[in-house]
């Protein structure tokens, strides 16, 4: 019985945190473009690598 005093609030709190997170993500438009989100990860938008400096070359040789 004593453990319930802690466990029930914890369970409810975790649920409430999830609910809050979901509401926030919905409001910020994260579910507006599910199609695009799936493809964006494949987009090759990396910035070009910085020119290798001397350290790199010395290590290679």
């Amino acid at each position, binding site marked *: 019985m004593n453990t319930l005093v802690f466990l029930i609030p914890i*369970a*409810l709190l975790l*649920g409430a945190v*999830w*609910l809050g997170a979901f*509401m926030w993500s*919905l409001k910020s438009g994260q579910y507006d*473009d599910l199609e695009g989100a799936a*493809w964006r990860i494949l987009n090759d938008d990396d910035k070009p690598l910085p020119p290798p400096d001397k350290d790199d070359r010395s290590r290679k040789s």
Partner: protein
Amino acid sequence: MTVCCPAPGTDIPVVPLTGDEARHWITSAGPGRSRIEFIVPEANCVACIGGIEPSLNALPGVVSARVNLTAQRVAVVWQDGAAEPQQFMQTLADLGYTARPFDPRENGVLSEQEEGKALLRALAVAGFAAGNIMLLSVSVWAGADGATRDLFHWISALIALPAVMYAGRPFFSSALAALRHGRVNMDVPISLGVLLATVMSLYETLHHAEHAFFDAAVTLLFFLLAGRTLDHMMRAKARSAISNLTLLMPQAATIVENGMARIVPAAALKQDMTLLVAVGERLAADGVVVQGVSELDRSVVTGESVPELVQPGTEVQSGTMNLSAPLTVRITAAGQDTFIAELMSLMAVAEQSQSHYVQLADRLARHYAPTVHTVAGATLLGWLAYSHNWHTALMNAIAVLIITCPCALGLAVPAVQVVATGLLFRRGIMVKDGAVLEKLSLVDTVVFDKTGTLTLGQPVLLDGRDVAPRAMALAAGLAQHSRHPLSRAVLRAATEAGIAPAAVSAMQEMPGCGLEAQVEGKTVRLGNRLWCGLGEAPDAPGMEFALTENGALIHIFSFEDELRPGAAAAVSRLKAADLRVVLLSGDRPAAVARLAGLLGIDDYHARQTPQDKLARVAALQAEGRKVLMVGDGINDAPALAAGFTSMAPASASDVGRVAADTVFLGHSLLAVSDARALAVKAQKTVKTNFLLALVYNALAVPIAVLGFVTPLIAAVAMSTSSILVVANALLLGWRAPLSIPLPAAPRPPVGHKPEDDSMMPLNAPPQAAE
């Protein structure tokens, strides 16, 4: 990065986006920032994100540019004064994308989005509540009693009350609306069951009783909301895909005023203005030609496949496309008085005369709700007579209402519709509304339009392979400078055969006759027989070109309006399913008869005006037939609206697409027979679902009436019936009667060839009938 899918019609006039006109589309995005959205129909692959976003972000003043692949839109936020929306459109145009500003209020997209979000929020709240209450309920069922049970019931009540109030709103408001109109729909028993379960449980909790039904009320809402949200998402997706097809049709026009040409919005056109119509442009108003000789493509308007010769004095109609030479037109009617507007009003009348169709679920609800309420009332009276205890009698009566709360019935239809419309959507068939599937399954007559529906509305060269390479090269050389549909067909055939067009000089286009040019010092003509000095051909006027060199015949090119792929198969399947197939066309009798013979359609009518088509469809319906109208043109729109239900290809005119209930994106006409076959199967599944739900009620109600229902029994019974119904709906995808294959690669690979046509079917912009 290469443009993934170049704009098909670079000749489409760009709508000017300056001054007051632009205000319409711009919204505020925080202090000092503005936001605008563009519809970019070609933005359909990952390469587009990489192409569009960096280019727009590089513009000075742009805060953010984001592509939405689902809706095919681009949203740009910029610092006020630092950039102009016109620049964004220019940048998109430079990249090869056609863009048009998007007004979120149009077609109710905004309210639809809001509705979807509200449903999702309600679903999340119901899910949260259902999870936590079930946790507590399981403890109670497992044997918690005394103070612990009371505590658990109280916590459940604390969660359930606000959750039911919030998550139940979609059902309560719909039930209220129905009751206010003196009708009963499925939401009435649902709302009643949920509310009674909550109130009764609260009363029981107050009196330290053993049973509380909070879990039943909340789980019920959760299941039903899940079904409803999926249903909404599916339909919103289809509708947004259709509304994106609306391109930059004649929204702007060029007029001549005091010797100066000026671009004005189409809405500002008035009678007696002088309109300049460039080659490739569609007329924005009705009028009379005052200057110029050209040919007009009237296929979208009349269904006629052969271009019509126009000269000063000829009356021309809005929506037709100018093919060979610039025209000057004096406007005789604009805006509300044009030919198109006239058809629109015909359409509105046809729509109004449609009797309101009541869906099967609502018809069932009309019988279901009174029956259930009678049983509950009888239970109350029976127990009162038997035990003389108000509390027991009331509790048992309410238990009957809870256990009969139509969870499975509420899911029976949406679950099937989500699966069925999803199957169709992936094959490029967009169903606008849930009731459409039901209507499709009841159809017993299919009426087809010819040009653009049974055919592609695009002539192709017959026996292209038999033409001598030299003849083909000469013809292609002349044809490449013309917009005439037959010239285009010659050029396509030459490209397919890998023959390079010959170099020509002194090219001249004689509207209504053909093309003339100098090749290696000789006069070469490509045109009709009469003009080429061969005499008029007796049949198929206009569907052939003669090629002559210094008056000597080299070759006769014959063309035919290409049959839409799958047309024959679709027609034979529809006939095999005992449907009556009718062909109504605005084209010449010879062309219609030939096509009807080819497809095996016995019932055909040529030279049909829009009014004739409407009258024929109305007559068929008056006979008690349920007509599926399949058409694409402006001339089909009234008939589309009058039909019991209707379909249009994506290449249809804007008006046609709006009028149709279902739009298919691919080329294949098998979409029609597939949609019909799946609708029939879906309707069968709906009926077995109803049967399952009713069997469940038949078993559960006696238990409730006798007073044996506990929350545990209620939870198990309700969940089982819901799961059964959903599983049955999912079976629909198994051996679905669909013959259109899924697109092999739904998205084009990154950086594919710009001129690749193979990826056109899905998400393709409409191909104007040119």
